[in-house]
């Protein structure tokens, strides 16, 4: 048992979105589909204005609403706390997508896979080897690169992040990297805590 999760260091994040493209190449994502996004927020009035970059991905909630509403049993939580979608079981009803308060799910369509990244209906060799994983019509999302986690590696977005703004590890292990950085930086906050989904993602600033 473990509780895999992530800490986002907002002081480090520069909103470069290297994570987004790292994820796209690791996971062969179709055009317009993201398992992670880095958003920006401007606040204040000139000249006292600030911008913060806010990385987002599936929060792998402990009380995952997506899992609760899934009628087919496709969404499930692994022993290590990673919330998964089984593409073989998913029927593409979208219930999970509307139940996720964080808008972190996408539906992959046949048209999307046929059109390809260059929009010409001409798939690259990269896409041909990558799109095999997708069942058209199903809902997909971040799984913390579960294959990589199984192999003892960090998710792709974490390893490529130029500023180490993403800290991944097991929240059950008091000595894990995310737990250590949370202690050092005086704790963090979860996204939309009021939704009571118990995200395993924290923001420190």
């Amino acid at each position, binding site marked *: 048992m473990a509780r895999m999760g992530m800490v986002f*260091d907002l*002081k*480090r994040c*520069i*909103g*470069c*979105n*290297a994570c*987004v*493209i*790292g994820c*796209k*190449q*690791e*996971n*062969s994502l179709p*055009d*317009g*589909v*993201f398992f992670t996004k880095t958003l*920006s927020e*401007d606040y*204040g009035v*000139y*000249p006292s*204005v*600030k*911008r913060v*970059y806010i990385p987002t991905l599936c929060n792998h909630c402990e009380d995952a609403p997506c899992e609760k509403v899934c009628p087919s049993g496709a969404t499930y939580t*692994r022993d290590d706390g990673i919330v998964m979608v*089984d*593409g*073989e079981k998913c029927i593409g009803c979208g219930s999970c997508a509307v139940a996720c308060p964080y808008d972190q799910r*996408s539906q992959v*369509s046949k048209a*999307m896979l046929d059109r390809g*990244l*260059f*929009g*010409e209906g001409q798939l*690259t060799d*990269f*896409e*041909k*080897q*990558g799109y095999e*994983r997708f*069942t058209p019509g199903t809902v997909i999302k971040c799984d913390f*690169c*579960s*294959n990589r986690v199984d192999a003892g*590696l960090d998710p*792709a977005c974490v*390893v*490529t*992040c*130029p*500023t*180490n*703004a993403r800290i991944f590890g097991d929240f059950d292990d008091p000595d894990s990297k995310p737990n250590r950085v949370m202690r050092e930086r005086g704790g963090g906050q979860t996204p939309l805590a009021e939704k009571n989904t118990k995200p395993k993602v924290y923001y420190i600033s």
Partner: protein
Amino acid sequence: MSSSERVVQNSLKPGKWVRSTCKMCLHSCTNLIHVTDDGVVNKIEGDPSNPSNNGKLCPKGNAAIMRHYDPQRFKQPMRRTNPKKGPGVDPKWEPISWDEAFDICAREIGKSLKEDPRKILPSLEDFQKMHIWTWPLSFGNFNCFQSAGTICGGAYHPANGYIHASFASINDVKYCNYWINDGTGDGFSSHLHAAASSYHMANARVDRGMKVVTVEPRLSISGAKSEEWVPIKPATDRQFALSLSHVLINEGLCDWKFLKQDTNAPYLVGEDGLFVRDNDGEIWVWDAKADKAKLWSDETIGDFALTGEFEVAGKKCKPAFQRFKDILDGCSPEEMEKITTVPPDTVRHIAREFAEAAQIGATIEIDGRTLPLRPAAYNYYRGAQGRKKGMQANHSYKLVNFLVGNIDAPGGHLGVNLDEKTIDWTRCEPGECGMMKGEPHQLGVVPPMSYPPNEYHLLSYFPVGVNPPHLNLSVWKDPEQFGMDYKPDVMVICHSNPLWAMQGPRAGWFDIMRNMRFIVCCDIIPTETTDFADVILPSSDVLETWNMTMIEPPFTEGQCLRQPAVEALYDTKSEEEIFYELSERLELVDSWNNVINMVLGFHQVPELMLEAGKKYSDKEIAERKGKLWNGKDLDWYIEHGHSSTWRQSKKAYRPWEGMRLLFYIEDMVTIREDLKVKMKEKGVPFIDQWPWDDYQPLPTPDLDPIHQEPPEYDLYGFFFKDIQMNFGESLSNPWIKDIVYRDPVHTSILLNSGTMQAKGLESGDIIRLESPHGGPIYGRVAGVETMHPDAVGVSNSLSRIRTENRAVRHAGGHFNDMLPYDLKNTDGVTGQPETACRVKITKVDDWPESLKQGGTVYQMVDEIAKGKGAH
């Protein structure tokens, strides 16, 4: 097998990892390329063994696979069958054999070579292969049609050459605690090794608590991550820096010891601007203790006077420092605020914090040397240096660093070399009178001044410059004015897109290219420029070729290997093979080999020298570069990928120990006078139009011409990139597009919301921008709080035109169309043109016709705004 058990992550599919080097920008982050057992490249990661990028890649580096598999890549040599050339005109390519392609090129280039080699306009811009860039030197041609030097660092590189004897410069991330970024994204979004810089910068900020202050008209990533954003009116950074220096000097916040011992600030300067010398040419200084003049090298000097007015050898003179102080008398924060709009209180508190953080007097022990520790530094790049008075601008920023004694000090402002070639090379050489020799020509020698000008862009009139290629257009429009006695008729282009990058109206650049007898492009995908080519020579890409490179790594040194991860996908060749084939047919192999030996430094080791009569492959040249660096052969590099280490401290810190740095650049005076004499001798008719005022040994607060444009152009326009578009082409890449056009910063013309309201505009309105030099361009306006009220910001993501590359989204015209390309807006010293322009805004009712067809940025942006579009 259930999908949960299937291997779906690309990096874990059966295959191998190949060590190589990224080329999504010109720099040299090393990477690991994953190739599946089926031979497909399906993941590229950063190389964790490189202390520079530490396993990290920027978004562009992450997107390299999409360049490799771009279906629009040139797949074989081709020739044009449509005689009509123009933007958006299909060249109607016809595949031909390599032999035929080489024969055509040799015939057409050879014709010009025979008639007059000056007629060839090269645009060879592969920074990772300088030997290709310098191919035209093998027939003595110094023409330059590529944008390097304008949009890059026309004044920046010569200035670094004078101050550090280096190509570039950066603050020392290892020790710096107070980092001013002026008009640059160093450490956050752009310039030197973006992934590496941001990695080290984030650690410094978070782990060490470094404070960052960013001075810029638009809140960029750097501004967003700074403790303090100082919005500044565009093109006034020099005046801001001078006001900082004013405070530092007037409040005594200076490293006097450094100024006296390590710079030429005490050297006495006469009223002619030249140092006061004795008959042997030795320079006088004033010993304040003895109260008399002594020669600079006199060991009895008790105290070098920095201030005062003296008479020595019958000449009225002052120490160089006093000269600067005199200039600064007119540069109080209050006075400069009228230009910069930066409040005096802001200038004062930054100056004080900066000086305090610099810990003047502190030392640190590194590798057995006791060095001054100055953990505060002023860093700058394109946005601050791209000025008409570029040399003065650059110099003004350097002088802020001089005052606190941080030049090449731990924690301070360090020189960065382009490619050091050998592991033990140190860049600094002694000059005259104890001074370090200024090395403004970081990219090679400038040819001797000629009239009629040999170089179409007048390079030889800028004896300090890099290249002023924008002047190609000025000369093309009025060749008589410049006494031009030939007309270029052939272009040789390699990995360069001048039609996109050049400043000045596109229409002018189209006209030049339309009028070429022959254009050959060596490239991998269609661009604005390749649409005008007569022959395409398709090169293999970064995943298919060999190379060895070191390109201005900010904190490290060493060579980085590129090796083929896969066989070439198409019938393409390496650049080396292409240019050797051309050289052979043009009988240039021997002279090119000589050029390569010099440019890559092979001449330093006889057994590495390329031999006459022999052609070399990309692999052979790569191996020689590796051996030259550290004596290791290719097998060693294949195993290790690179020889990158932290920069040796002897090279990083005070490599000029024992020499005096050029606080005062006397060269500005001597070069000016020398050029005047030569122009008079040769009867150059435009001598009176020459911007002689630009040659100043110390920077002045004089306004750049941008501030004197007609008042109806009431705003200051500038363009910008962020880390997703850093350096070369990215916008044909679907992954890059997928992130760029989702950031509203890159989809509208940015205006301060107050300014927008005052103009009666609303966000989303379609507007037209015009400058006194060109335009119009069209776009949607967005009112934001993150812009200076006098500024208009346009992302480079809106700069493309419709071309054969259908993956590229076009927008409402290129900002560069509005930039000046004339002598008046060109730095007379370095050839750096002004890179901002005054603009006026007009609201229009509808898009111009060209934007009503498909394929525009706005079409994609509207889809994104509606929701998920594709999902």
